[in-house]
């Protein structure tokens, strides 16, 4: 712990400069970008939600695959033609299907995906409340330890905190 703190203090005094190998290629390049900063920001946001279909769980914004670049250019072209974000997404989905959306649409097929976690939470909470209702409150230590359990715990020694 002391050593870690010391390292931290040193870091504060003189920020170390590292040179590290990074991913060999890069995604978005300056020559692709739109002049209008607002439109470019929209293009980036849309690109982050579109999957590079030939890659492994990468968005077209992160990928340096040629097809990803084509799609980035397509997205920007559509935006400069005045299409809305939804229209641009629909344009790509029409060609590649829901597979290109990193955030699947809420539809009958994906109900469990979107609702599942909340269902776990709600059902769990409901179960807890029901369980509490049925069981009489208070009465702590309703189930005293059996002889065998007491012996086991004693063998563990040391006070339980």
């Amino acid at each position, binding site marked *: 712990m002391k050593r870690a703190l010391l390292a931290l203090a040193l870091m*504060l005094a003189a920020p*170390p400069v590292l040179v590290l190998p*990074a991913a060999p290629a*890069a995604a978005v*390049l300056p020559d692709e970008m739109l002049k209008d900063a607002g439109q470019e920001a929209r293009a980036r946001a849309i690109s982050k939600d579109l999957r590079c279909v030939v890659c492994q769980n990468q968005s077209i914004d992160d990928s340096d695959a040629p097809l990803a670049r084509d799609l980035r250019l397509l997205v920007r072209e559509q935006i400069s033609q005045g299409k809305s974000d939804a229209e641009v997404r629909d344009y790509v989905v029409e060609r590649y299907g829901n597979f290109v959306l990193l955030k699947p649409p809420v539809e009958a097929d994906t109900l469990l995906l979107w609702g599942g*976690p909340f269902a776990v*939470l709600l059902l769990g909470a409901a179960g807890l409340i029901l369980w509490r209702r049925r069981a009489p409150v208070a009465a*702590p230590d309703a189930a005293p330890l059996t002889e065998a359990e007491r012996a086991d715990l004693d063998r*563990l020694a*040391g006070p339980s905190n």
Partner: protein
Amino acid sequence: MLAEIGHFALILALLVAAAQAVLPMLGAGRGDAALMAFGRSAAGLQALLITIAFAALMTLFGQADFSVALVANHSALSQPLPYRLAATWGNHEGSMLLWVLVLALYGAGIARFGDNLRATLQARVLSVQAMISVAFLAFALFTSNPFARLSPAPLDGAELNPLLQDPGLVFHPPLLYLGYVGFSVTFSFAVAALMEGRADPAWARWMRPWVLAAWVPLTCGITLGSFWAYYELGWGGWWFWDPVENASFMPWLLGTALLHSAIVTEKRGALAGWTILLAILAFSLSLIGTFLVRSGILTSVHAFAVDPERGVFILAMIIGATGTALALFALRAPQMKSGALFGSISRESGLTINNLILMALTAVVFLGTFYPVIMEAVNPANKISVGPPYYNLVFAPLSVPLLLLVTVGPMLAWKRDDAGTVGKKLLLPAVLASALFAVLALWLGLDKAASAFGLALGAWLILGGGQVLVRRWWGAGGFSWRLVRTTPAATLGLALAHAGIGVTTAGISAMSGFAAEKILVMRPGETAQAGPLAVTMVGVEEVAGANYRALRAHFVTRQGGSDGKLVSERRLYTVSGNQTTEAGIGVAIAGNQYVAIGDVQSDARGQGLVVRIYWHPLVGWIWFGGLMMAMGGAASLSDRRFRIGAPQVRSRLAPNMVPAE
């Protein structure tokens, strides 16, 4: 010769494991102390044999013995020795061997440190552990033999994937395996408890250190993996929600839930069935993670060479292990004693809600990871992807109530408590965190309110960790050094781990709200701004390395009145034709400055170099918080080992006096 010794040791280990799977279990049923004792010796022997096999394989890699197919396929003479050795587990076969090694070492651990366990329980745990061993040893021997020979032997081997030639590879997989293979122990404990029909406080007390023993390295492994990904794979990304990352994250979430539910079972005898279920599921998700990586069912950056046959074998193992355990659970768990009751506001109910939310979070990751597979089976025409936008949208809001609760939990009394008392204990952290939120929200503006809330949440957690210690150190008579000195390691661990979550939360919030980037074409003399960071390119030179030529760009950075220098290179390896980028990173507590150059490109002002500039505020906190959590877990573990492993508690009954059950 060495390869044959290793192979032979592995075969022997399989035989020993097979005996260990059967005999102690029989012994426990009959009350035969000798058979039960055999389990302990067998566990040690099995670990020794697999260690020999593993050492043999590592030596083969060290000696660069290319007559072994695995060595020839995954290491080359040009690789530095540490990476040649690490290549032992940088491939499917070798990593399976590491898997069984870790499994056997945990087994030996139960035999060695389980002196005070009920003898029948220990025997059954060792048997179940050996059953898992048998399956995995058979898998390694029959489908993935690491010692297969290659004839004729090549003069040099095929180089390991350059991305894997990194210190990360040396530590990342072993830590992860220590983590999720460690959950095999809790799985065995759960199955043994179901067989005995008994999951009492003592059982939970015995199991808890093993939960920690798995959770601590898993936390380290995930943290290290995230750090590795940050600088190797992504541009500022530190978590990608890749299926394989998720495969390690799900056991972590369930392991965290288990860590907490086991406390309730130990202290109050309650939630025993739930704790057993969690112990089964945590290991099952580890197995399913192994399946994900090795079956090719999902595409992932991390996946090993795809082989459906191995997928079938692992799926069969999962069905065997998890299916049997859950069947046993359905049969036995309803009869088990349900334990003590507790009030709505109590430590127990706090921990129950903790478990509930952790389950919901696990469900997010689980559904996100497996939904594409499920859709493939249900409606193949509508193929979907689930990526970071889904997880960010669902995971973040669900985790907020949990993070709020983390600070409340340790202030709650067991059995029952009332809101007023707890409120008083939390007044100071609540006031401070709210004040921080108000100040940040006003200062940064309402559009950054979510990030301000995240930072305040981080403060709430760090203060909450501090409050645990404050309440321990200030007794009725004020601050006392005696109270500081006698603070149990577990209490320190609790404070450290909870504060660590806060540090990580702060880092994540800062990164999501205030990270800045600029991608542009630059020429020497030009300056660009990314958020608060100004970067000037001062010069570009051509340099020649040992086996590459490179463009090296020098930058001067200026941020908040302090200057720095960064260097980035674009390398062309002359032999292979590979191009790589060496990014320049300025590391500080406040955040990292990151500059990387790319190819030559033109913009309106002419030719220049593509430059990416990033400002990553508090990014280091994400990993430092992870380390704090791991250190907290380790502190807790040291506390328990002190109590459990101490020689003076060996007042155990002689084995033959243990009553038969």
